[in-house]
């Protein structure tokens, strides 16, 4: 077996040194009944060729989004990832190192984490960020739990614009806590949906936090400044969630709107679609809430010679020190995905990111302009970044399926995420990025027209 270096002779030598004749002597604490009941019916080992062949055959059964015009978004976005990103994250010193518990020989990872934290703080307009969470949805749940700890209140208000799976995750992960979750009814975008008055009315003295999404699940962009002020007055925290970090380059920052915690999905930058994981959760907040922040944090310090260096710091928040009183149980996070995010963002820089954001917005506008000419199809959003909701004259699900058979990934049928909302049956979420070409847009528009006629 190519990964196991010992020869039979070496194993014998080592056993002799230990003073055993049979390897099973080392397993003698295991109940005999359990040892003997293991019937090894698994196939025996395989070479690279066989493994590659088998996995390639499974991969071939999938339609890669790179092999079709794709307009899928809804929380995961396809962007061009510069070749440099994957090349650098595959360096063994990043790929095959552990959590940087020994700082003297982990300065590479620690400095990269410090840079990542700075980038996330800048992008969100917040004072600090942690070293990453699993993904946007779990970051969102952690933010809600943190708001409960900070405010010592129990009521959580989720906006109807929050990604439905994020709502599910918050409800699931908070179900055995003392928090009670109030969900606003999701509404498709319509004129006058830009204000937040309905949410503001629900805030009271029991409210721990209000959770909103920016742009929201339907692609709509709303100003949360007034909501932020209302939260502040009531002593509640404003949590702003985002799915698409590229959007933050085009938009006023969540920090500027008064967010207390900003969480989001970082997959868009540096991380592939991967059928949903691994992704990278971004978590940023204000300095005053530092002690209640979950997850690892790298901090700057000096070594014995007075040279600048980095360590994991404020560990007393975490499970390995605080155990049952920790701010979270998270240990392993999304380190390598965070590195990919950071490298991609570094390559883009201020100018590149801003340019990329504009390209995305323009691609979405071009797509919308082309689609709105189709008879019976209506664009519902007045505002959007790179994603918007359309209403079709017939159910979106079957249409998307038909187009998939023609190798066009048309968009997300919104009802897939809201099975109980019959009124969403005809709604489809359409995303465009810098990868969307004019011919992709034409193909989509023509195919939809064909299906509708």
């Amino acid at each position, binding site marked *: 077996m190519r990964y196991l270096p010992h020869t039979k002779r070496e194993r014998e030598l080592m056993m002799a040194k230990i003073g055993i004749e049979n390897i099973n002597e080392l397993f003698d604490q295991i109940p005999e009944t359990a040892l003997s009941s293991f019937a090894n019916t698994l196939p025996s080992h395989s070479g690279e060729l066989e493994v590659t062949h088998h996995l390639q055959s499974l991969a071939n059964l999938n339609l890669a989004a790179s092999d079709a015009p794709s307009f899928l978004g809804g929380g995961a976005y396809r962007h061009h990832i510069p070749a440099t990103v994957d090349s650098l994250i595959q360096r063994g010193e990043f790929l095959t190192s552990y959590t940087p518990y020994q700082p003297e020989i982990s300065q590479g990872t620690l400095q990269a984490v410090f840079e990542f934290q700075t980038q996330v703080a800048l992008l969100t307009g917040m004072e600090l960020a942690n*070293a990453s969470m699993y993904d946007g949805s779990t970051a969102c749940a952690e933010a809600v739990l943190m708001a409960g700890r900070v405010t010592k209140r129990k009521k959580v208000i989720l906006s109807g614009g929050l990604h439905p799976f994020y709502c599910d995750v918050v409800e699931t992960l908070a179900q055995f806590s003392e928090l009670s979750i109030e969900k606003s009814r999701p509404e498709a975008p319509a004129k006058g949906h830009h204000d937040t008055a309905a949410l503001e009315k629900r805030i009271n003295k029991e409210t721990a936090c209000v959770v909103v999404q920016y742009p929201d699940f339907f692609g709509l962009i709303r100003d949360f400044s007034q909501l932020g002020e209302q939260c502040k007055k009531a002593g509640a925290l404003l949590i702003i969630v985002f799915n698409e970090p590229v959007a933050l380059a085009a938009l006023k920052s969540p920090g500027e709107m008064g967010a207390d915690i900003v969480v989001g*999905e970082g997959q868009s930058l540096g991380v592939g679609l991967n059928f949903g994981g691994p992704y990278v959760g971004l978590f940023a907040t204000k300095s005053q809430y530092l002690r209640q922040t979950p997850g690892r944090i790298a901090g700057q310090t000096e070594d014995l010679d007075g040279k600048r260096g980095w360590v994991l710091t404020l560990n007393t928040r975490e499970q390995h020190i605080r155990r049952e009183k920790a701010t979270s149980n998270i240990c392993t996070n999304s380190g390598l995905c965070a590195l990919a995010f950071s490298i991609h963002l570094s390559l883009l820089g201020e100018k590149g990111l801003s340019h990329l954001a504009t390209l995305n917005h323009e691609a979405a506008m071009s797509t919308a302009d082309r689609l709105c000419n189709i008879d019976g199809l209506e664009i519902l959003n007045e505002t959007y970044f790179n994603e918007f909701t359309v209403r079709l004259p017939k159910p979106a699900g079957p249409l998307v399926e038909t187009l998939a058979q023609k190798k066009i990934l048309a968009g997300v049928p919104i009802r897939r995420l809201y099975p109980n909302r019959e009124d969403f049956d005809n709604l489809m979420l359409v995303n465009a990025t810098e990868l969307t070409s004019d011919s992709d847009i034409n193909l989509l528009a023509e195919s939809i027209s064909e299906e509708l006629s």
Partner: protein
Amino acid sequence: MNKEIVSDTKMISSTATNKGLHIEEALIFEQGSTDRSGVDLPEISGRSDRLGKLKRLDQIGLPGLSEPEIVRHYTRLSRNNYAIDIGLYPLGSCTMKHNPRLNEAVARLPGFSNIHPLQPPSTVQGAMALIKELEEWLTALTGFPTIALSPAAGAQGELCGLMVIRSYLEKQGDPRETVLVADSAHGTNPATATMCGYRTKSIPSNDSGTLDLQALENMLDNKVAAVMLTNPNTCGLFEGQILEISDAVHKSGALLYCDGANFNAIVGKVKPADLGIDIMHLNLHKTFSTPHGGGGPGSGPVAMTSVLAPYAPLPWIEESASGFTITEHLGDHSQQSFGRMRAWHGQMGMFVRALSYLISHGGDGLRQVAEDAVLNANYIRQGLHKHYSMPYPGTCMHEVLCDDQSLKPAGLKTLDVAKALIDQGFHPMTIYFPLIVNGAMLIEPTETETKEILDQFIDAMITIANHSTSENIAALQNAPVHTPRRRLDETKAARNPILRWLQDTGPSAT
């Protein structure tokens, strides 16, 4: 002319902080210029936006660097890291084994890496087939019929396990109040119990480093929901009374959760389902070698009995005559599920790597993994037992536990051994864990190390122990010295937290 050269050389040697291959690297924020970029993008048309009145007007503050600068920056950073690719990484209970590059290659096949989680199921049949195939392997290895694949890492797997248990108990009419956790457990266990709304009580270990069965029996009552156990435990010992423990737990109406962090010791040899365990998580990033990546991502599938299966989290994949389907919502046949733990279907990228690892090893290779991992740990134990005190003498499983009792008279402690190992070219073992042993040193070599490397490590450890009786002790306490940085001031970092770069603080002297 000659004179000038001499003076130039002097100037360079007095100011340079670089040493040979080690080159100091500033933060990206201290480099480049705003107008630089490492990408070339298509032209923009400049049409008016549809962002409402929320268009960003200010700068973000990101630096601009060209591609060569970026490549050099991260390459230089990488060289400040130790890694399994560089040498032995014997972190106890972390299973730092070789990461096959085949797994990286197959995970990057566009048919896996470039599929969207919301694609129509008809276009991702291969992905779902792969997930089912991984489930079959994990079922064969654990003996449990149901595997919940969505948990993102070990700690989320623990939470999944306890949520399944709580949902099951609530259905029986009483969720109960406490979770008992072995005192040698990882900190994630009690932290997880809290997140699941349980109070935690600690079960003491006995003098042999295993769970005190008598103490456990005294603690079990009708308030206990679950007992969380790691087997083999974090002292590197198999809980030999596991069947008696399981009987006692079940008699009290509680369930037995197993933290699978140390599954590497028994993979392919024993099925945890045959040990009286009800539910356990596996760490694909430990046992099945999906790389740690400097802290993640991981993947923490949860294996459970058929009694608990109805409570497993969404989503799950089923096979029907017309192919694979995915259940994403609570519905008629998923009423009892405790919900959804994360947005999508699981760590697909890790699933591909783990399956590649499993097929590569096969049933025979996996059994050899456990046997060699245990052999290597015992080989180190044999090599060190005359030089380091060991709290629990006798053979161990896949990791061996030492402490610093024998070094103390000379004034040397565990931290010094760890830092001295760094100077000898090894990553230290896990130190000061488990908490029940003072000055613990937990060494897990894994099966992918050669006898030669193990011998070198043993020699290095003996050298350090021998130094502790000489006058060289100050040098050891000063270690490491051959590293990009010497011991770092963690007190300073915590008292005055600097957690991001700020313009006005500027570059500090390096």
